[in-house]
């Protein structure tokens, strides 16, 4: 008796089911609590899709209109639910079409399990039809990937994938399953993975460093908290609030950190970065202590590194050790989970308040309001502005909607002017800046949180990159509210051409289709808004609509998003006025 036979003998004796690899995959997903899959079928993955028909009561499959759409939708689903997103595609082009979506999830630390099919194992390496080396292709943009050629290896691979994707700093993983492994039978047994000796996401709490941090915090005179995506990922929203309220330290957030701290809070100072708020950018360079939590000092946040936070000592609380001292040299590193650190830190810090320091932020807010926000959100004449659309939506929804954005001016306007009140209510493409993210992401967000109003702000450029997902919205009647902020330009690129390329508009002006007619072609109710007096009523009508709805809003053609930390400038050299 061979080892294989002996193994099967025991499995049979233990009553393990004898099922195909395809069925085993679905059972693994169910065991991990999965109920929704985004994907697109094709030749190599047909055994899995065939089995899906037998599990429709447990697994809902959303057929997108392009694999990239499935990847973005799965990511958005993960961002709003906190559960890993699942994405199925076939081999070859199905797999390569995912790459942008995988890379996007990787840069923004979102757990997505990508399942790609592969040609029959005997054909691997022969340039077979629809064969591509997706392991090689996806290696730099996945947290982990593997190939399964034998069905019996499948349960362990899936268990490992879930463990790796969701722990530590989360990220996308990819499992490539050959067609023969999907068909081959195995004795099924599933065991969740909770340990890999080469991967240790649960780092023992560095209590000594936390004690040092508390001393630095208690002695600071102008401290500032920079809160990132890590707050949301580690579930430290309440801890952050408690920590800030006890210490009285003002809080600034990164783009992906938005919604982790209520925008109306007395300690909230705004959002950081190139198009962030004036106060937190300017005063980063006045702070004497920076407490960076779950953020990675991205270049869009820091501006010129040589002139970044030179007066401050920096405490960096970060779960990914490779991020510490990568861009900014820090004075104290705490390589731990943000929530655990804050829980331990709160009892050690003193109750304090920094009235005069916070007043400086309020003075900046006033300047920013007078110079930028007022005319952007409450203009009295001229074309409709992006900022005013966002403000209206924010007021009409009470800041409680889930906001999905595309990339560019629409994204920055949404991030700047929506008043977030609840955590996990922003879905945006941060690190990658993937145009075309918005529409498919809105599908994923609404699927994950059907009870929430989901509003997407999308530019006329990005909308056309993944416009086919209107088909998905039609197919499943997904009641998302789509706002096309149409300025007839690739707005952000045009803004840069305006500011840094002598207004030479190279390939940024668009000849657009009639978006209302396009939407109606997909049987999605739609309306176009051109006048200010129609804006509020149309937005309210859109929000009240039961099903999906598209509102095309003509906005100022050559509006610029300000303030701006220009490339190469320091965060304290914020441009508030720009006249071309």
């Amino acid at each position: 008796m061979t080892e294989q036979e002996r193994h099967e003998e025991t499995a049979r004796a233990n009553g393990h089911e004898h099922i195909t690899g395809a069925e085993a995959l679905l059972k693994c997903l169910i065991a991990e609590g999965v109920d929704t899959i985004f994907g697109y079928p094709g030749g190599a993955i047909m055994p899995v899709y065939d089995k899906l028909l037998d599990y429709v009561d447990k697994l809902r499959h959303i057929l997108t209109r392009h694999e990239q759409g499935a990847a973005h939708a799965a990511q958005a689903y993960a961002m709003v639910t906190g559960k890993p997103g699942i994405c199925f595609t076939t081999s070859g082009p199905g797999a390569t079409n995912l790459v942008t979506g995988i890379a996007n999830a990787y840069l923004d630390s979102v757990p997505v399990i990508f399942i790609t099919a592969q040609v029959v194992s005997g054909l691997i390496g022969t340039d077979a039809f629809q064969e591509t080396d997706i392991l090689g292709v996806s290696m730099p943009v996945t947290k982990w990937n593997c190939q399964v050629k034998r069905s019996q290896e499948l349960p362990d691979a899936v268990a490992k994938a879930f463990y790796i994707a969701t722990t530590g700093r989360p990220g996308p993983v990819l499992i490539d399953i050959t067609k023969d492994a999907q068909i081959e039978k195995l004795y099924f047994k599933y065991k969740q993975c909770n340990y890999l000796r080469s991967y240790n996401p649960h780092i023992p709490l560095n209590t000594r460093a936390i004690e040092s941090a508390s001393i630095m915090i208690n002695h600071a005179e102008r401290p500032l908290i920079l809160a990132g995506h890590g707050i949301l990922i580690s579930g430290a929203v309440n801890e952050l609030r408690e920590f800030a309220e006890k210490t009285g330290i003002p809080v600034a957030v990164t783009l992906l950190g938005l919604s982790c701290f209520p925008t109306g809070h007395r300690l909230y100072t705004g959002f950081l970065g190139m198009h962030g708020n004036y106060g937190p950018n300017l005063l980063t360079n006045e702070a004497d202590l920076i407490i960076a939590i779950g953020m990675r000092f991205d270049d869009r946040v820091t501006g010129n590194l040589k002139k970044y936070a030179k007066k401050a000592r920096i405490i960096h609380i970060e779960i990914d050790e490779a991020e510490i001292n990568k861009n900014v040299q820090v004075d104290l590193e705490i390589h731990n989970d943000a929530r655990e650190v804050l829980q331990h830190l709160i009892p050690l810090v003193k109750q304090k308040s920094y009235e005069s320091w916070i007043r400086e932020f309020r003075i900046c807010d006033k300047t920013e309001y007078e110079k930028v926000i007022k005319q952007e959100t409450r203009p009295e004449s001229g074309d409709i502005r992006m900022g005013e659309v966002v403000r209206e939506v924010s007021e009409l929804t009470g800041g409680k909607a889930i906001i999905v954005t595309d990339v560019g001016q629409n994204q920055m306007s949404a991030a700047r002017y929506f008043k977030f009140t609840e955590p996990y209510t922003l879905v945006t493409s941060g690190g990658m800046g993937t145009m075309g993210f918005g529409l498919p992401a809105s599908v994923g967000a609404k699927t994950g949180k059907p009870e929430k109003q989901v509003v997407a702000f999308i530019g006329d450029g990005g909308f056309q990159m993944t416009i086919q997902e209107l088909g998905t919205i039609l197919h499943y009647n997904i009641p998302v509210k789509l706002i096309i902020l149409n300025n007839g330009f690739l707005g952000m690129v045009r803004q840069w051409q305006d500011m840094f390329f002598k207004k030479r508009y190279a390939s940024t002006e668009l000849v657009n289709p009639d978006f209302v007619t396009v939407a109606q072609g997909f049987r999605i109710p739609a309306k176009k808004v051109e006048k200010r007096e129609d804006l509020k009523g149309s937005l309210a009508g859109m929000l009240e609509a039961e099903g999906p709805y598209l509102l095309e809003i003509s906005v100022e053609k050559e509006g610029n998003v300000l303030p701006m930390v220009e490339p190469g400038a320091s965060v304290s050299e914020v441009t508030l006025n720009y006249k071309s």
Partner: protein
Amino acid sequence: MKQEFTISLFSENHIGILNQITIILTRRQINIESITASESAVKGVHLLTLVVKTTPDMVRKIARQMEKLVEVLKVFVHTSDEIIYQEIALYKVTTKGLMSGNVIDHIVRTHYARILEVSPEYIVIEKTGHKTEITELLAQLEPYGLLQFVRSGRVAITRQVKELVSYLRELDEAHRVKPEEVETYNRN
């Protein structure tokens, strides 16, 4: 200031790990001076020894990025004075050239080299040592008609006391899987 660093990287025997490592170096345009890959003393654990020339700041960053890879167990970075290291080289020289000068004995003795094979046409000499020593012998042998020359990458042993084995044992003991957790998920 760029200097030479030896990176010792212990990993699981996973297909593609070398690719993942080189991706990290390629992104930053760091050239690999030498590379050796083999099984380590611990069964199932592979050891990669890389020599790179870069700045201390950069080597720290790339080491952390390497250690972040799921299948990588541990990464050690050493400067040359912290390790004992060797390379091996093989020289194939014409017998005629070497015998005529009657110098072979002298060369082999002074360089602590070894003769592996002698045939009427060629002699194969082996030498282990640092890169400079190997290059010196190469220069000496060249006039006698060098037919072939190969050298290996670096292998290195650290001067530190704590070894990977004890590190692995600690990890395994801290995370020993409890048997009752095993069967929970098989009922779906």
